[in-house]
């Protein structure tokens, strides 16, 4: 099993968290609207990133959080490296299954690649230009 980062901490592989309830896995071609009804009942949603450069899951993450109100664990799985973490977290992901070989402890630094963002996102519901005025 690949290493997992959750809540910005490395979760030890030897102590898997107890799973309760259904895990919903979405491929990049899946439409979040089609599963909206089920979201309240699932324990976790996994969004699959099949390739390093496949960015469809970022839109899926935002839609799940912003449009369909999903509050549970949102896990990015697949070809994930530290280079994705800042963007993934901005789009509402809170758990990250890194690709094999990626050092999870070093990868934590990826969350701090940038200290700000211009755009509105799940993490920063107001764009920078509105926060500047506040």
């Amino acid at each position, binding site marked *: 099993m690949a290493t997992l980062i959750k809540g910005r901490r490395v979760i030890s592989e030897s102590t898997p968290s107890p799973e309760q309830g259904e895990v919903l896995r979405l491929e990049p071609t899946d439409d979040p609207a089609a599963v909206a009804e089920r979201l309240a009942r699932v324990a976790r949603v996994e969004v699959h990133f099949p390739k*390093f*450069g*496949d*960015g*469809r899951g*970022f*839109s*899926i993450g*935002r839609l799940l959080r912003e*449009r369909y109100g999903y509050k549970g664990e949102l896990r990015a799985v697949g070809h994930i*490296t530290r*280079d994705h973490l*800042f*963007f993934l977290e*901005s*789009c509402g992901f809170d758990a990250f299954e890194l690709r094999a*070989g990626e*050092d999870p402890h070093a990868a934590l*630094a990826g969350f701090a*690649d*940038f*200290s*700000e*963002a*211009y*755009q*509105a*996102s799940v*993490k920063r*519901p*107001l*764009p*920078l*230009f*509105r926060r*500047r*005025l506040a």
Partner: protein
Amino acid sequence: MYVYDEIDQRLVDERVRQFRGQTERFLAGQLSEEEFRALRLRNGLYIQRYAPMLRIAIPYGLLSTPQLRKLADIARRYDRGYGHFSTRQNLQLNWPKLEQVPEILAELATVQMHAIQTSGNSFRNVTTDHFAGVARDEIVDSYVWCEIIRQWSTFHPEFSFLPRKFKIAVNGAQADRAAVAVHDIGLHALRDEKGEIGFRVLVGGGLGRTPMIGVCIREFLPWPHLLTYLEAILRVYNRYGRRDNIHKARIKILVKERGADKFRDEVEAEWAHLKDGPATLIGEEIERIATRFTRPAYERLGDIDLSAVTLPGFATWLKRNVHPHKVAGYAAVTLSLKKTGVPPGDVTSEQMDAIADLADRYSCGELRVSHEQNLVLADVRQADLVAVWREARALGLATPNLGLLTNIISCPGGDFCALANAKSIPVAEAIQRRFDDLDYLHDIGELDLNISGCMNACGHHHVGNIGILGVDKNGEEWYQIEIGGNQGEIRPGLKAALGKAIGPSFARAEVPAVIERLIECYLAHRDSDAERFIDVVNRIGIAPFKEHVYGNADQRSSRNQREHALA
């Protein structure tokens, strides 16, 4: 010039740190080739035919003199003492060392510059009219909107891994000097009857191997909705744009496969959720951005009549390279980077330093890069024009060919680029030599000639009135000629159009003679001097040109030459 605030600067500095780490991880074997490729490309770093190529962003083509001096300095110390201005208003260095790139980026950051998203499957440099802010036909100052889009498109969390590159252009004037119809998104700024600003939104234009003219999906988008609407377009593209085939991944293919109406409906449906949300723009932000742009303090001057100046060569330069300015007593001057014998768009470090001095003394310390690969001094006092002309001429930057056949747009081609099928620079030079008679050149009149070394079309050959495309045939370099292309509505009624090939391709040595034949045909058919080459092509079609080039006798000689070339 837009002046960074603390956050703008911090993000650029953080990018330098991030890329330094990525380069180290790659060199240490912790990032695969494929992963690092995606990461270095979004920092403008290509691995080219002979060396890496670094593309430095010049947002919307606007450059200050400290920045130009820094570019000269970097080209001198990290490269071979020259750079190449590209059609995306950027600067390319052809010989940097991979390990030194983080250092180059750190130096760029000291003058508020970077190479962020100058390549890769991401938002590219937003481009605009090189006369923005000074044009007499201005509707709005497009720089403000370009900067708003620059910020929104920089490190966008949702759209940093798009199916393919994404280019946005903004035009704020009556005439379209930004070629907006051949961009993924083209925005025409307009004003409604109340004077409120809005945008006509074109989508799905582009060049490359499947050239297309963008389609309008919204006639008037009021400015507060600009970013939410762009976000809706991008979300549809990010989710549904093809990722299975790199050649079908641009938004133009999605628009074509869906059909413009269906695509518009999807964007509208997405926008319904985003409209009036937090990303809706507010007046304070427009004001804040506008005031971060330094503007020249214009003196109260009157227009000067320079027609009496009899210095040989001055009148021609005045006519071709000097452009009207919205402030009385001022003019915009194009410094031509199209001197015969010099690759189009290339400048040496010494020239960059000298140009920076010129801009400091005569144009408020600012310059613009045009998508035609020239530099513009936008705020020159008319009283200084003679002095600027003398100095520009001494620097080899006063070739009076703006808008004429020898103002060739060209990609670096097979001399540098790993993608190219054929060389473009020697073709440009051979044509410039063939048409070196200035009187003849001026008699031919306005004509855009563009050259690309392969179908990726970096030299915009599809929208040249004459376009030349390098093709590979069994390892040989051949050139296909198109006519009838046009970059945009630079005059009322002249629509953006894609050129059509006139027939089989030619060997490199034949190209200047073919251009000569096209010109002969044009001159024979034009009604008057006022009828330009493109007007004649539009009026009589390509058949007469084709016949004049390939007529029986010529076809024979062409074939002979071809056999000779292949022998």
